[in-house]
């Protein structure tokens, strides 16, 4: 078995919340005991609704935020124990592309200066000539050519797609091994999305990158990812290949999520799977299975009492539900 590039074990991030001077300390359990692996050269998509903890997970992996507990292995080494010097080295290897390309760039810097910053931070390339070469290469990689035309521009002088390309170029310029992309296409127009997604695919092939792709759009994950994980209230409820997750969901939440995606065919009626109620608070998650207050299938006491573990219900298909077999029966699977 090939050692995965990234291995996350029992990762937890609890944010302290202060209500007042006299109330006891409470925590927002943003990420609660999450474990998964990402193999080298693969793309893992992390999907879920807003506030489920996917962005936090992504930021934890590149240590933009510090975990409350748990281990993160990068290339076999536990990065949670890194000191500041090794951490900086690590950041060279693991980069991030943000959701809002405009917000993620200093509006007063030219494209050149934006791309130059990683080089300056990590002391790469001493001469100005070398730096410019690297910047131009990076721009060419993201297909912004000729690079000289783009380097003197300010972010507001670029279109949304171009901005995001610059953001990707910035992530690439240090030749990292891993990129965490936080909903990189959510703020782009539909027509541009495909371009950027294709760009990612090309780059991954060209540079042998590993990608963690955070999104709330299942269609996008189906297009780009090798594996898809669904998160709910800080926990992973299902991981498998995108096709399997979408077409043969083994968790009721995934089912509802998939069913909610509108199909552009007026003849197909949306069979809505009713989820009642509001999403629960991550401060005080429900007991047992977190989804049980809203789950249409949860009529059994076990759902309220015991938290379902994430288990392999089917080869390379994990789900966290006591009653996955019910769904498997529906699809006609045999428990493997």
């Amino acid at each position, binding site marked *: 078995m090939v050692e995965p590039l990234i291995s996350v074990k029992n990762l937890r991030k609890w944010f302290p919340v202060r209500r007042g001077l006299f109330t006891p300390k409470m925590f927002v359990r943003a990420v609660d005991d999450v474990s998964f692996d990402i193999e080298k050269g693969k793309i893992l998509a992390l999907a879920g609704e807003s506030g489920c903890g996917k962005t936090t997970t992504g930021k934890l992996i590149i240590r933009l935020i510090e975990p409350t507990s748990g281990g993160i292995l990068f290339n076999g080494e536990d990065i949670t124990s890194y000191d500041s010097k090794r951490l*900086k080295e690590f950041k060279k290897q693991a980069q991030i592309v*943000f959701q809002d390309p405009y*917000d*993620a760039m200093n509006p*007063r810097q030219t494209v050149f200066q934006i791309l130059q910053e990683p080089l300056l931070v*990590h002391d790469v390339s001493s001469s100005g000539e070398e730096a410019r070469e690297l910047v131009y290469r990076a721009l060419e990689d993201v297909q912004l050519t000729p690079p000289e035309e783009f380097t003197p*521009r300010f972010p507001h002088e670029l279109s949304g797609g171009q901005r995001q390309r610059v953001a990707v170029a910035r992530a690439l310029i240090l030749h990292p091994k891993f990129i965490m992309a936080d909903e990189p296409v959510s703020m782009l127009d539909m027509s541009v999305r495909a371009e950027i997604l294709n760009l990612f695919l090309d780059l991954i092939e060209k540079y042998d990158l590993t990608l963690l792709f955070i999104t709330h759009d299942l269609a996008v994950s189906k297009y780009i990812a090798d594996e898809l994980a669904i998160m709910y209230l800080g926990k992973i409820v299902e991981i498998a290949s995108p096709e399997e997750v979408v077409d043969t969901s083994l968790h009721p939440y995934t089912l509802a999520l998939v069913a909610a995606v509108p199909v552009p065919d007026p003849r197909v009626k949306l069979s809505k799977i009713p989820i009642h109620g509001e999403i629960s608070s991550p401060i005080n998650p429900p007991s047992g299975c977190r989804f049980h207050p809203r789950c249409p299938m949860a009529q059994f006491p076990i759902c309220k009492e015991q938290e379902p573990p994430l288990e392999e219900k089917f080869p390379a298909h994990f789900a966290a539900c006591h009653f996955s077999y019910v769904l498997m029966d529906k699809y006609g699977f045999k428990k493997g």
Partner: protein
Amino acid sequence: MKKKAISGLRGERYRGIREFLKEFRRSRSGVLGLAMILAFAVISAYATVRYPYSEVIKWNEPRLWKENPTNVPPTWIQTIVNKALPETATYVAPENTKANLTYRGATSIITTVDHLLSFRYSYGETPTNVIVSFKVQYNKSSPSVILTWIKPDGTNIELVSFILERGVVGPPYFITNDLFPLYDDQIKRNLAAFLRTAFNLTQAGELESNMVLKVLFGTNQSIISSGPVEVLKGSYRLRLSFQSFNLVSDFPSSNPVDDIQTFKMVLTGKVYGAMGTDDKGRDLFIGILWGAPIALLIGLLTSVISVAIGVFLGIFSGFYGGTVDNAIQRVTDYFLILPVLPLLIFLSFILGTTGGRSIWVLIVLLSVFGWPGITKVVRSLALQIRESGYVEAARALGASNFSVLLRHLLPQTLPYAFANIALSVPGVIFAEASLSFLNLGDPVLPTWGKILGDAQMGGAAVAGYWWWVLIPGLCIILVAMSFALLGNALDRILTPRLRKR
């Protein structure tokens, strides 16, 4: 997408600066402000060169100004009122009008020197003051001098005759004497006597000061009448007769060198200089001119210090947050709630009684009250930047706090800081002017505020000495306005505006 010809390399690195310069050039008020400031800078440079510091501290020594008229307007008002007004003139008796005579007797040597000073007077009005100065040298005994005033119509008036005091250092003794006919009692008595004998007027023992000039310069008719003086124009002469005695035994072979060394007269006019004089006769041009470099120095230095402190604290406060932030906020609020001028006066007064009161103390004091304003704004700017996406991106890159500060926070704060420096200069200048007006500023240097304060004490407003008030005030206004214009332009260009995406 507009394809602009952005010249390659410079466009990449320095585009921000180039865009700013382009916009600045377009702002008319900004350019105007900058031009005015540069003009003042040039004037200041000229002032320090033409009148070096050693000259300027003499501003407060009255004896240097005694030969100037007091409270007179500038010379150029002659063109406005279309009248020729008497100007200040100094007349020195030349060597060739001196007659030396030495008489050697049996036991004593008598030296007589006669020196003549002549001048033409053709103004329609009398001068404001007459000052006669002479320097004599003698050996033994106290010599006698007689000063005679000869008018164009031949009238001889013996102004004064007296015996000089014995000098301290010598022999030979050098004595300098200044005579002020307007205030000298002896001269006034002699003039009164002259009036009695020449015009048969019943005149009191001593002539009043305001009559002296009339007698000296007026026609006979106007002397007699009580109306305004009509000046007798023509050639005037002033004779100084000097006589000294020596013993032959002291000078067996040679003659003593008793002599008149210098003999001059100053007639102070009704106008003086480019900006007139104050009540001590000081040439206001020098004072006002020197006000420029002082104003610029105080204004800029204080602003830079205040803004530096304010920016530093604001960044610290906003970027690092926590208890440091809270502490700095409290201190800032404390300063903002205090009334500035009363406290400045209070502190200035206290410091004046204990230690020195120099221009540097003033700068420190003004800086202390200057920084709270900008701290608040920089802090909110720092907070905003701290939460922004690109700072998060920089952190994701592995940039340290310091790196983020240097690369993102500072470049965004600096433009605002510069605008603020320009904008705080007017306030500083006004504060300094107020303090100097109240005599709480630097006691030596002539600042515009101090000149105005002197004007108030000299009753300039009530007496109508407009040149003493108008010109220093205009200078203050012009400097303040120039910095306000520049600052406003900078603020407009550099402050973040909402960009339409």
